[in-house]
């Protein structure tokens, strides 16, 4: 058993490895960590590189994968790439859910019955509130996509990002996701993090590495402490949570991450429920 596997097994090191497939997006959400949008630098990981990272991760003893962006489904063959990743380790793919029509919806069927879960962002049961942060017609597209994916056998969970959740609004949102075929255990709520575009808008909670799960995160620019690490402000990549520029072999950043964790004082683990 590798030192990484032992650390994952003992809970010292989180088991999931994240990959930023790309940074560009068809949306430009107000709180986006990565300043993603249609015209930004793509910072793309190829499908081949993601599969290479996944194989490394499995060999080292990591137990799960995550793919985020940007909007991963702007990349061709993302459904196939996620399916391949899911055959290596259980995989979550984060998506804004607005692109699942026509060919992309048909292609998504490849993920049915596999170890791939799509996590779709939905911030409110109120279309106006949701769309204010995520863009025009976002709500309608997501509401159409979720049941379409569920009907095709794709596992879907919903992620809600927001500040100061209101109990009534939260209850309405939960009723909505149940109606869409997504059970309570597949609904995650997370705070806005004061990084990226949110920092420029002075939104969200301030965090340091001790607030963030130490989930190894691979991007085209290097490996980071957490998926909340490789953020972008004014077009510049933040480097404060950079581990290494080397991403393959994965043991290089993994060992750096483990070394940092083992150097942290006892009890200095995550304090925010951030996923």
């Amino acid at each position, binding site marked *: 058993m590798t030192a990484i596997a032992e650390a994952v097994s003992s809970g010292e090191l989180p088991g999931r490895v994240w990959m930023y497939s790309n940074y560009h997006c068809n949306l430009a959400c107000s709180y986006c960590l990565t300043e993603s949008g249609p015209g930004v630098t793509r910072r793309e990981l190829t499908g081949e590189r993601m599969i290479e990272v996944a194989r490394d991760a499995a060999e080292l003893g990591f137990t799960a994968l995550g793919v985020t962006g940007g909007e991963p489904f702007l990349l061709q063959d993302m459904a196939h790439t996620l399916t391949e990743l899911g055959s290596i380790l259980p995989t979550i793919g984060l998506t804004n859910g607005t692109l699942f029509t026509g060919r992309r919806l048909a292609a998504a069927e490849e993920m049915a019955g596999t170890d791939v879960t799509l996590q779709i962002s939905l911030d409110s049961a109120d279309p106006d509130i949701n769309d204010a942060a995520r863009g025009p017609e976002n709500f309608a597209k997501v509401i159409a996509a979720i049941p379409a994916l569920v009907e095709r056998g794709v596992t879907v969970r919903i992620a809600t990002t927001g500040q100061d959740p209101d109990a009534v609004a939260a209850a309405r949102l939960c009723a909505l996701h149940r109606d869409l075929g997504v059970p309570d255990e597949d609904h995650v709520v997370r705070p806005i993090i004061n990084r990226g575009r949110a920092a420029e808008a002075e939104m969200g909670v301030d965090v340091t*590495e001790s607030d963030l799960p130490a989930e190894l995160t691979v991007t085209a620019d290097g490996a980071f*402490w957490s998926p909340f690490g490789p953020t972008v402000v004014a077009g510049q990549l933040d*480097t*404060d949570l*950079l*581990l290494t*520029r080397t991403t393959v072999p994965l043991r290089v950043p993994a060992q*750096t991450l483990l*070394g940092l964790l083992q150097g942290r004082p006892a009890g200095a683990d995550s304090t925010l429920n951030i996923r």
Partner: protein
Amino acid sequence: MVGMAADTEVVAEVSAPPMPRVPLLDAAHAPLTARPYFAGGDPGPIVAALASIPELLEVTLPFLSTVLNASAVDARTKEIVIVRTSARQDCRYCIDAHSVVALDTGLTVEEVRTLTAPGPVSLPDPDESALLDWIDAVAGAIGAVPDGVADRLAGSYRDFEIVELTLLIGATMMLNRFCTSLSLPTSAEVAARLAREGLA
């Protein structure tokens, strides 16, 4: 450069430093494993540039620190090597930074001028002159080092010292090209000190 101020007092004019060609990280942007290097304040542009690749920083800095700092070879000799090598490589940043270190180590302003002068130079101490010839042959030329230069060095230094001095020349050359290529800037503090010493 020296100019005349309005009140006729002679003051040093410090020219603007070059713009670096890569980002120089500050403490707020220092990656996790690079943070210790920023704990004591500005670590200088070499560290600030290398911090963008933390896995290289964490192996390069211990190496450079071991080679450049106190060791079996005395500090004066090491600064002679660094300043002269930097002069032969025409590295503005390294000449400036290590001229100050050389002065602090006890070299005179005149000795620093000698070390940074073009063409063959010598110092009164025959051992140091043999070393200067060795530096010029290693850092100021390509190809084999002439036997005569090597023989004179061997007459002045022990074998292990020759190994260390030669590694120091090589490490300095690496930094010379790094700093020059990336256009790393001399700090205002160093520039002001050089101006005060008449070495600007």
